[in-house]
């Protein structure tokens, strides 16, 4: 019997003429690809194409290639589909994977284009003129009371205006990733960057480590079904509280951090014993209805002195009606996570086949809330594969107030999307708790990488706004008239509320 039907996905090629025999590749690889016997000898089967060794090889003598092993052509049975069957026949297990949905679904953002001013209504140069990206997340009043300022003008009347909103200097947040799924150094990098950028990081469901307390004014604390690390102190430290109902990568199912990742620090932050699995049940067992959700929202408000409370859901078929219920339940924001959003671990079948694209969810939710006259009651945060400032602009034009980035922020820290977070052996030191790997990220360096990324996107967003001839991101928000579609069918255009290019 063969050991396995599955052949290595990659070939590790070393140019031994150039190789210094320094052994750095052996040291750097978290997957144990290399053995050293006078020179590094790779085991192709263990390679995940994360490029850690390639990046750190001083001789640039390593290359990773696809294993070009030929399979008999069959459009129906791709090599990946065959491998999945073999793996399950060997193990009897649910296939576990990570990061976002890699299947070739239509990328709607790539079929949308933005407008620009030409001749009439001149464009604006953001380098020389003010360009406002400031964004407020939270409930906005139905009307604004003003009073005379005694000098012929008006001012806000006492007690009028926005209350308890989160102030963002740019409409980009970091999406929730728990300590446990990512390392503490990643959490620190995100928190420091959020503080410098005037935006927010999100703890995810794994609690708030004491090292993040200095950054707590830029931290959103999450409450998920496992209630890990949730106590009055936790709720009072966060700038806002988020109820996690679902995640784009795994709508409708719970989370499950394996015991191996629950070391002393993770255990202390989550307030659970070391080595036991941290199980987040699929539903919150105190939420079986919108009324129950309202009860939890107000419990969190009561416990925190009425901080903003948001609700994160995965984008699913009925997302518009669900979002309406969430807003009516008293949420200050709705966080929509599209089906291409990342994860630290999810069953492959769920990640790849459940949920809907974020572009559609934004449009459907924004329209529904407008139709019901409650769009101002809550903000909409969109996530689930925001890859560039263009995606940010398009998401906002479709109706989002702000976006959140997870995969992109991890890429700023070295992630190469090798989809192996669930192994806990991330060579880049991101999704691991092994001390020899986590120390690869210096939070100071990480914060700078993240700050650079968000600054760059923010500048690009200002350029886009300038081209559109508006001087504030507020003017782009929900302005679908500034979008056109290319290559989408009529039905899709209708759902998105967007005209085809040329109309």
């Amino acid at each position, binding site marked *: 019997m063969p050991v396995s039907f599955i052949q290595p996905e990659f070939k590790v090629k070393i140019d031994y003429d150039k190789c210094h025999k320094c052994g750095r590749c052996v040291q750097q690889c978290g997957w144990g690809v290399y053995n050293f016997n006078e020179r590094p000898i790779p085991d192709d089967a263990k390679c995940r194409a994360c490029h850690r060794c390639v990046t750190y090889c001083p001789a640039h003598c390593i290359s990773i290639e696809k294993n070009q092993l030929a399979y008999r052509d069959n459009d129906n049975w791709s090599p990946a589909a065959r491998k999945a069957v073999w*793996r399950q026949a060997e193990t009897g297990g649910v296939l576990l994977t990570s990061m976002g949905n890699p299947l070739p679904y239509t990328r709607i953002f790539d079929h949308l284009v933005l407008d620009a001013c030409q001749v009439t209504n001149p464009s604006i140069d953001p380098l020389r003129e003010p360009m406002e990206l400031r964004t407020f997340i939270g409930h906005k009043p139905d009307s604004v009371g003003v009073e005379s300022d005694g000098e012929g003008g008006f001012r806000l009347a006492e007690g009028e205006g926005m209350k308890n909103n989160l102030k963002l200097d740019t409409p980009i947040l970091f999406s929730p990733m728990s300590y446990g799924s990512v390392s503490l150094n990643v959490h620190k990098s995100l928190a420091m960057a959020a503080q410098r950028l005037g935006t927010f990081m999100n703890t995810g469901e794994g609690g708030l480590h004491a090292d993040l307390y200095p950054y707590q004014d830029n931290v959103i604390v999450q409450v998920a079904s496992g209630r890990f690390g949730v106590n*009055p102190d936790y709720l009072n430290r966060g700038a806002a509280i988020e109820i996690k109902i679902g995640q784009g990568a795994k709508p409708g199912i719970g989370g499950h951090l394996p015991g191996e990742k629950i070391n002393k620090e993770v255990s202390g932050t989550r307030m659970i014993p070391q080595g036991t699995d941290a199980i987040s049940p699929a539903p919150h067992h105190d939420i079986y209805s919108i009324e129950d959700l309202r009860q939890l929202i107000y419990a969190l408000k009561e416990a925190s002195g009425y901080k903003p409370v948001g609700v994160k859901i995965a984008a699913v078929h009925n997302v518009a009606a669900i979002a309406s219920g969430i807003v009516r339940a008293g949420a200050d924001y709705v966080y929509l996570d599209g089906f291409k959003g990342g994860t630290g671990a999810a069953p492959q079948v769920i990640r790849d086949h459940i949920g809907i694209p974020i572009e559609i969810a934004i449009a459907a939710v924004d329209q529904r809330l407008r139709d019901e006259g409650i769009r101002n009651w809550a903000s909409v945060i969109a996530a689930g594969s925001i890859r560039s400032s263009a995606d940010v602009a398009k998401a906002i034009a479709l109706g989002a107030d702000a976006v959140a980035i997870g995969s992109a922020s991890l890429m700023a820290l070295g992630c190469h999307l090798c989809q192996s977070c669930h192994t806990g052996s991330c060579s880049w030191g991101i999704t691991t708790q092994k001390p020899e790997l986590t120390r690869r990220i210096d939070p100071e360096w990480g914060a700078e990488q993240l700050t650079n990324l968000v600054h760059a996107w923010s500048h690009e967003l200002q350029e886009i706004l300038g081209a559109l001839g508006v001087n504030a991101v507020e003017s782009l928000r929900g302005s679908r008239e500034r979008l056109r579609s290319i290559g989408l069918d009529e039905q899709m255009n209708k759902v998105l509320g967007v005209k085809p290019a040329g109309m």
Partner: protein
Amino acid sequence: MPRQMAPGVTEGYLKVAPSVARDGDTVTIDAAGIYYRQLNEAIRGAIAEGATRVVLKNVNGQRYIGTGVKAKGVTIEVHGTAGNDMAMFMDGPTIEVFGAAQDGVGNTMNAGKVIVHGDAGDVLGYGMRGGAVYVKGDVGYRVGIHMKAYESLVPIMVCGGNARDFFGEYMAGGILVLLGMNTQFAEQPLVGSFVGAGMHGGVIYLRGQVESWQCGKEVGITEATEEDMAALKPILADYCEAQGMDLAEVLSVPFTKLAPFSHRPYGKMYAPM
């Protein structure tokens, strides 16, 4: 469609501060007809001003009593029926309810004690991490769900009556006890189905018998040993004192112990790609 403010459960309640009477360290608040937000503001205010005993009169379903309150040496007395999510996230105080309580008592509670001299509803002690909840009578569905323990924090819940389905589901730690004594449903089984389903930590004690078909596949069912009973006895003694019951009578029937087979019930379910 006309614009309206978010609808609230305000009907029949007044959004005004309740009347508060102080007598030394005791503060008495009349909750009759007062909306929960104003009532809880008054409770928190009384505790912040140093009250060690807060007496709530005429409570009629107000939610969130004691929710998020972090204090030591404080007792809250509830006269009437406590509303949902009482003692949620609570960290320290003692709440004594002279009446029944609704759903969510001790939800995600950290420390403190809740004594209910009546029945209680569903989802009691969800995600509870420490402290104790003592209910005299019957309880509803999903009681003790996902209770957990951490270091010195070991949550304890004792229910004196019968319980419905999903008792101790997902339990990850702590001690959950069901007596079946003070019940309105004496002719029905002690507990419903799916007891301890998905359980991966902690222990459940039932006074009497349970059938294996009533339990989740993750739990082992054994008779409580002398050692088990020695550990349980002080808890039951404390419960009996709080509820005015006879410990000898409680101990007169053998207890069944439910404990999980594994701390990692789903460890072998996955095939990493």
